[in-house]
């Protein structure tokens, strides 16, 4: 494994944990897969389509998201939105995230 691969793996690992938080944060209103992918991309959160689509289903099966097929448009789309449990979980995760950022900044400032 060369240095660059090691670095890329570490970066990917670092980002992976934040993806769920980023996705949940975008789903207070119903969104479908591709539009969510684009929005996240525009906001600088690079998440692969092949990761995002399965992630949405997984969060749904965990009860954090609800989904609904919208068949009124020309192309039927599956919309995802936070469930009540999802809203609660997102709030808790957000608190954890803020504490984590604070701690990390404090630790990293020492160097």
């Amino acid at each position, binding site marked *: 494994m060369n240095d660059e691969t090691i670095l890329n793996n570490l970066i990917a690992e670092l980002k992976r944990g934040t993806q769920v938080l980023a996705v949940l944060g975008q789903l207070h209103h119903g969104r*479908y*897969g*591709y*539009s969510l992918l684009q929005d996240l991309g525009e906001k600088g959160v690079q998440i*692969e*389509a*092949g*990761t995002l*689509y*399965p*992630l949405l*289903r*997984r969060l749904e099966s965990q009860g954090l998201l609800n989904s609904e*097929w919208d068949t009124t448009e020309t*192309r*039927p*789309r*599956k919309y995802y939105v936070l469930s009540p449990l999802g809203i609660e979980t997102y709030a808790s995760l957000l608190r954890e995230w803020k504490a984590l950022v604070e701690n990390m900044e404090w630790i990293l400032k020492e160097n």
Partner: protein
Amino acid sequence: MKKAYIERYIYAVTKRLPLAMRDDVSAELSANIQDMIAQDPENEELLLEKLRKLGHPRVLASNYRGKERYVIGPEYYDDYINTLKVVGVIFVTVSLITGFLEAVTGFSNPGIPEVITAVLTGLLDNLWSALLTAFAWTTAGFWIAGNVGQKTNNSDWKLSDLPDLPEPNVAEISRFGTVVELIVGVSFGLIFVTLMRNGLPYFNQPVIDPLIPFFYLSIALDLIVGIVKLAYGQWRWPVVLVTTIEHFYGVIFAYVFLSSDFLSPSFFQAIADNSKFTLAEALSGFATGKTVLIWLIVVGTIIDIIQIAGKWLRSRSKA
């Protein structure tokens, strides 16, 4: 055309998924892919680019399935490989014996070449199936342990569950050496005992027949010593114990066998007829030879036992 590619991609993903989620994943993937290429739906290169972004169907399917699935999970993998090695050696040895027994039953009066050929073909016949059987049983056992049994509980274990440390000053036993010793020892033992069971020219059959079970016992002891050596991998006390027992048995048995009249009178007569020695000279020369051989075996065994005891005692005094 494009539609066919999309459908083929989706099929390649969903055929790897549980039935219950196939339709829904298929519909959602289809919609998402259509969205991804909406800017230019007929452009084949764009489609390929977007599908590549989604990833290889196998990887995407694995993402959809969520948890990784294993025949042997990573937490069991090392134990699995180690068990496979030990079980493999045991199965190969046992198959060697059964293959050999299958091969030699049915001989009426075999010569040495026939017995050796029979043992070798019996061994080869059984070797492959023994390896496969060992592999299959070990894999099945670990699969059951990993999938049906309880998951390894990360927090529910006691300090006393931890394995003993290998004793740092105890001499290691070479695994390879033990395996070679085991296979060579057991096959030669079996060849020898079969030759005697089937009657060799010049051997005194009525004297040898009652001794046959003791030859088998000797082979069984070899087998036990080999397995115990493999299991411990070090000169710890159980290895020292079984090895010493085996050595004592060997020397006593060699003494009993060599002191018996295992060669028939016709053997000595044949020597006397075909050489310048008289019958009396042949008999007394042979008796001297036997005595020397017995002493060599006794002394050799004692040296061997002292060496083994030395290894063990040295390690104990250092510990």
